[in-house]
């Protein structure tokens, strides 16, 4: 084992949204930070030229290279599952995951990433913050999280507006003006305004989404120019990606990024922390030392690392994800109308369903337009011949909306994972069992029906609901939950792993549950809070 000299104050494992946002306050406090990461980068062969979706399709003879991929990897024939939404330029984010971080499950099919930026590389940008009703199981409330939301929003750039969704989102001083919505969004919001009081009585509230998409420039990142290429490229940096923070951090003297390394285990004592890594290229082992360790390897990656380091094999811990569904809907009022091609690709609308009133936790989801993803992807799931499916979707795709509904998730005895020692010296395997109980299933179905009934009143005709399977929300959490109870394999209110004095969990593993809101913005705020705390404890 090669041993590196102890140079760091803090080691951070992982460069996703949590890792980089934990690093910022640490570096700002003058601490020496080393980030360990596998850190795969985009394939230059799949780079996307400058231009809008419509103009590239009309003019670029090379478009198959990035729309379908150089090896046609963008053409999928199987079921719609986790990762189905990844376009070829983003598919590198799953590289080596099966080989380096194996997982076994009959019912849980997650998407994990070892890329620089983690799953944040393909994040849809939805940024609804948690409010007190969402944080009931957490050891902190919104007021405590607020300064961290503000700090992250100033850096990341969150655009949106309050409107009828204000009770579900709270306020944010750093909020940028909302980005422009497209023809679908305008149609749904227009109809909602006319029927708001009726829909509100039914518990449905609709408004503009909060997105990690710039409506004003931040540094070298530019406000969106509505080119409709956000699923394919980050050329102007309008949508936040964690690697943009990584690039800024790498310019700082106190920060070192050590990629091509898989963290294997840590050993923590009051004197400090060591982390053993393996080169993914040569297999060479290294030992890194620091005073503190912040783990942000993604909830499942973090779970593997902690269980292995504590030698807790076959020891079940909880796991949660957001049960979710895509619902393809036909936006009837837009049929026969011209649909603007100048648009962004992310969510065009947002809804909150709160039948018990806006002061209770709501089911929050987003409305997308099926526009800049190609129509051939829809055909395989339609009960039509390819010719007729193609003919139908060519006519209807501009009027198709996709509603994404995700539900809150709490741990139960049927949602567990455990690390199993690898056979014959192979890699350890994370085994996951995940099942909703009958009460949860009924609640999900009942809520989905009520939401779709509301959208029918907004002119959207549901065509087909797709439940891509557990874990397909790509939101995972709950394995090392923050708790005020002093129990093993939990973290304290600062997300410090209770078995240690100096190991902190900056990602979703520390969330006790997942509210019904895309958690990435909240994860970044949580990570920022952890970073501040470690800086404080380190005496910086």
């Amino acid at each position: 084992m090669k041993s590196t000299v102890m140079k760091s104050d803090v080691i951070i494992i992982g460069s996703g949204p949590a890792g980089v946002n934990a690093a910022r306050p640490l570096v700002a406090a003058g601490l020496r930070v080393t980030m360990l990461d596998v850190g795969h980068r985009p394939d230059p062969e799949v780079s996307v030229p400058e231009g809008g979706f419509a103009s590239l399709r009309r003019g670029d003879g090379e478009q198959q290279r990035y729309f379908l991929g150089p090896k046609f990897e963008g053409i999928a024939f199987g079921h719609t599952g986790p990762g189905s939404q990844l376009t070829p330029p983003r598919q590198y984010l799953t590289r080596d995951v099966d080989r380096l971080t194996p997982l076994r499950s009959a019912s849980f099919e997650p998407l994990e990433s070892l890329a620089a930026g983690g799953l944040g590389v393909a994040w849809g940008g939805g940024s609804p913050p948690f409010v007190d009703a969402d944080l009931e199981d957490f050891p902190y409330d919104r007021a405590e999280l607020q300064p961290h939301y503000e700090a992250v929003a100033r850096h990341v750039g969150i655009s949106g507006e309050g409107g009828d969704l204000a009770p579900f989102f709270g306020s944010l001083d750093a909020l940028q003006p909302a980005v422009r919505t497209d023809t679908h969004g305008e149609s749904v919001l227009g109809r909602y305004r006319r029927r708001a009081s009726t829909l509100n009585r039914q518990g449905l509230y609709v408004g503009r989404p909060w997105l990690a998409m710039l409506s004003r420039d931040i540094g070298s990142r530019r406000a969106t120019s509505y080119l409709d290429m956000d699923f394919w490229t980050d050329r102007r940096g309008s949508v936040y990606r964690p690697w943009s923070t990584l690039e800024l951090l790498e310019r700082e003297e106190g920060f070192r990024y050590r990629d091509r390394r898989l963290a294997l285990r840590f050993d923590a004592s009051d004197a400090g922390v060591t982390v053993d890594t393996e080169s993914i290229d040569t297999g060479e082992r290294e030992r890194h030392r620091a005073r503190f360790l912040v783990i942000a390897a993604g909830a499942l990656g973090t779970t593997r690392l902690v269980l292995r380091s504590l030698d807790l094999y076959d020891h079940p811990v909880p796991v949660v994800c957001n049960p979710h569904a895509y619902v393809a809907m036909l936006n009837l009022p837009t049929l026969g109308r011209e649909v603007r091609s100048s648009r962004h690709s992310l969510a065009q609308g947002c809804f909150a369903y709160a039948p018990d009133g806006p002061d209770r936790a709501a089911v929050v989801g987003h409305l997308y337009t099926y526009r800049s993803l190609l129509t051939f992807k829809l055909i395989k799931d339609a009960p039509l011949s390819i010719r007729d499916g193609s003919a139908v979707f060519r006519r209807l795709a501009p009027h198709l909306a996709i509603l994404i509904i995700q539900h809150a998730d709490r741990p139960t005895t049927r949602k567990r994972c455990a690390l199993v020692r690898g056979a014959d010296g192979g890699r350890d395997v994370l085994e996951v069992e995940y099942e909703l109980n009958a009460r949860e299933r009924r609640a999900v179905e009942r809520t989905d029906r009520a939401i779709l009934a509301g959208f029918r009143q907004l002119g959207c005709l549901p065509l087909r609901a797709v439940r891509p399977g557990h874990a397909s929300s790509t939101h995972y959490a709950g394995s090392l939950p923050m708790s005020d109870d002093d129990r093993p394999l939990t973290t304290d209110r600062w997300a410090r792993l209770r078995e240690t004095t100096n190991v902190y969990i900056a990602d979703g593993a520390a969330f006790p549950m997942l509210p019904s809101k895309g958690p990435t913005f909240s994860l970044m705020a949580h990570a920022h809070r952890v970073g501040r705390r470690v800086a404080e404890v380190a005496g910086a």
Partner: protein
Amino acid sequence: MSRLGSFELDQEARIFGEYVLGVEPSPALIERYRDAHHHLDLKPTSPDDIAVLAVVRERPWTVAPLDAALAWVRPRATLRAKLITMAAIQETTPELIEHFDRSPRGRVRLFGELATIGTRAAIDIVVGVVLLMTVVRRQKQVRRR
């Protein structure tokens, strides 16, 4: 990866290209279709698949009904995978963009076109199911012999 020879692939590309969009595929598009077969697993997975592909190469008019029937009976059949591949290539070919990026039309015309497609689809399914059963039965008889 497909083991079909380039003659069969070219023949398939011409039949499928014309079938999906009603446009004779250009040599460049045929080349792309062939290239896709080098990267994607489009090898027939069952004797039924092999038989269906042989029939459509021999009698191109059978593609529509067989495709329609397979959409219900076996949506992951190799024939459909090959047709999706062709549809994807066509959709990302700038010369064919007019077929995909149509200017909006009035509702009456839109609903009329959808009704025509729906009627055609219904006929194709009925014919296709009978045809598919015949192809499968014949394939089994041949194997028994």
